């Protein structure tokens, strides 16, 4: 059947994951971080550098060139090089690029990573000289509106107002994830967080407070992608890339998006589920891109885990906590584990499906969702459904 041959479903697998420490000052270059994380991921898979024939990363002018990494790994004849300019909305998509390269036969074994010194070597969106080609950002930069918290704050106020959500609804997201982070050995934030702490935290860009915002982390994570067949013979239980999709969205200013009440991923989600042949009810654990707390609520709605306007109640009921019906961001996410720009979410999903999460393990997790930023501000999104190999 031609359609079956054209789908990515279960044809590729993640066979290794690796990380560096997450810190506030790594003391090393992003090249070193990338190579260390890749080495760790290959060790995890039981593979060596000679097995790698493709490289893929996303970056925003803040990290090592993947071609340089390929040379560093000693790949004499690299078969796939993907250098994605993008942030949180590109993270999962870079993994999908790797899967497509493997499924097509372009490459056999691709490493994906994100390496950044976002704390010690420059913050994203800091006001240190706008690029010559500002694009649509030229319309907000003059107003002092340019950092990620400011840009998401604009989306957040409209969203909170539309569904009559309160500050406490965002606070519960931060608190839930902090509790999860307390169970992650890699987490940067492990002190308990109370609602009083949350509400007392300082404004960053109203309506976003400090504890609505992600951490700034030095660190790297890497993933190894190969064919489902080859995955069967490797060291760790394979995690299949069961479904994948890219989608669109809007920037602050753009046409054809009159309705801003549900995140743009709502239009992609049906395509994602169809690609995996499942529905949201089959997802056991969700790792949502969470640069800011409202993104979690938005994605619960956009990905069909509840109706628009019901996400806050879902979080308040404990559904997204460990032990709930849909544990979300079981590692603590970008809010409390660390900020490795979307890819530590994929790593956590893999670890959940391997049953390797110790005290934060979701019992019997077989299918996981991992997402990128859901399509605001960049105008792009992507996500994967991962599945435990049978």
């Amino acid at each position, binding site marked *: 059947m031609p359609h079956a041959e054209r789908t990515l479903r279960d044809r590729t697998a993640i066979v290794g994951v690796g990380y560096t420490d997450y810190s506030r000052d790594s003391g090393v270059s992003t090249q070193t971080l990338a190579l260390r994380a890749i080495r760790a991921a290959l060790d995890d898979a039981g593979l060596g550098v000679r097995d790698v024939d493709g490289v893929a990363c996303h970056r925003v002018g803040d990290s090592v060139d993947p071609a340089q990494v390929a040379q560093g790994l000693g790949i004499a004849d690299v078969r796939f090089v993907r250098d994605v300019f993008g942030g949180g909305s590109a993270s999962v998509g870079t993994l999908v690029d790797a899967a497509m390269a493997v499924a097509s036969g372009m490459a056999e074994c691709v490493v994906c990573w994100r390496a950044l010194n976002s704390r010690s070597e420059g913050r994203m969106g800091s006001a240190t000289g706008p690029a010559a080609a500002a694009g649509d950002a030229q319309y907000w930069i003059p107003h002092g509106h340019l950092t990620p918290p400011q840009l998401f*704050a604009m989306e957040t106020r409209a969203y909170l107002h539309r569904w009559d959500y309160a500050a406490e609804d965002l606070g519960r997201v931060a608190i839930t994830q902090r509790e999860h982070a307390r169970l992650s050995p890699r987490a940067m934030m492990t002190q308990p967080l109370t609602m009083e702490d949350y509400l007392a935290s300082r404004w960053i860009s109203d309506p976003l407070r400090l504890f609505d915002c992600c951490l700034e982390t030095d660190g790297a994570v890497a993933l190894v992608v190969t064919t489902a067949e080859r995955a069967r013979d490797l060291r760790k239980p394979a995690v299949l890339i069961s479904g994948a999709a890219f989608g669109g969205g809007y920037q*602050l200013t753009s046409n054809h998006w009159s309705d801003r009440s549900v995140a743009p991923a709502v239009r992609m989600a049906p395509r994602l589920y169809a690609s995996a042949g499942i529905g949201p009810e089959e997802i056991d654990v969700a790792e949502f891109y969470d640069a800011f707390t409202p993104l979690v609520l938005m994605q619960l709605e956009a990905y069909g885990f509840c109706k628009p306007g019901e996400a806050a109640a879902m979080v308040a009921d404990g559904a997204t906590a460990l032990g709930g019906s849909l544990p979300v961001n079981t590692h603590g996410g970008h809010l409390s584990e660390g900020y490795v720009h979307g890819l530590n979410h994929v790593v956590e999903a893999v670890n959940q499906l391997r049953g390797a999460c110790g005290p934060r393990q979701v019992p019997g997790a077989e299918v996981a969702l991992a997402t990128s930023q859901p399509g605001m501000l960049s105008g792009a999104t992507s996500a994967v459904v991962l599945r435990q190999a049978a």
Partner: protein
Amino acid sequence: MSDQQVPVLMDRDSREWWLALRRHELALQTCTDCGRLRWPSRAICNDCGSLEWRWTESRGTGTVVSWTVTHRPPSPQALVPYTVVLVRLDDQDDVFMPGGWNGPADGEGLAIGLHVRVGYQAVVDQHGEDATILRWEPSVGSGEEI
């Protein structure tokens, strides 16, 4: 923000829009073939695909979709707090335009759905040249205009 140089980053597509602001005109592109409005500047109509368009003047009014109040300055020189407003234009419901706020710096009095009109603020750009940026303000007699 007002005493500092403001980065005005016009490009070849947007130059006319920025120059119109200096004349205190709010410009939108109008598709010559189907009449659809668009902003920011694009070479093609996102409805009919026509490459033919002209600049036309907006009614200059709209409603507040959202706003932010910045407390953590993006650069050390920035004076905080300050407010930035996102407005849905009355001309067409999917054109959203951000701007400064000609009102209290902490945004007091703003409300989603508030009717506003365009205002203009003279600034000095990064080259020391005179420039103009958008600054929304409460509309007067907004009851009739809605």
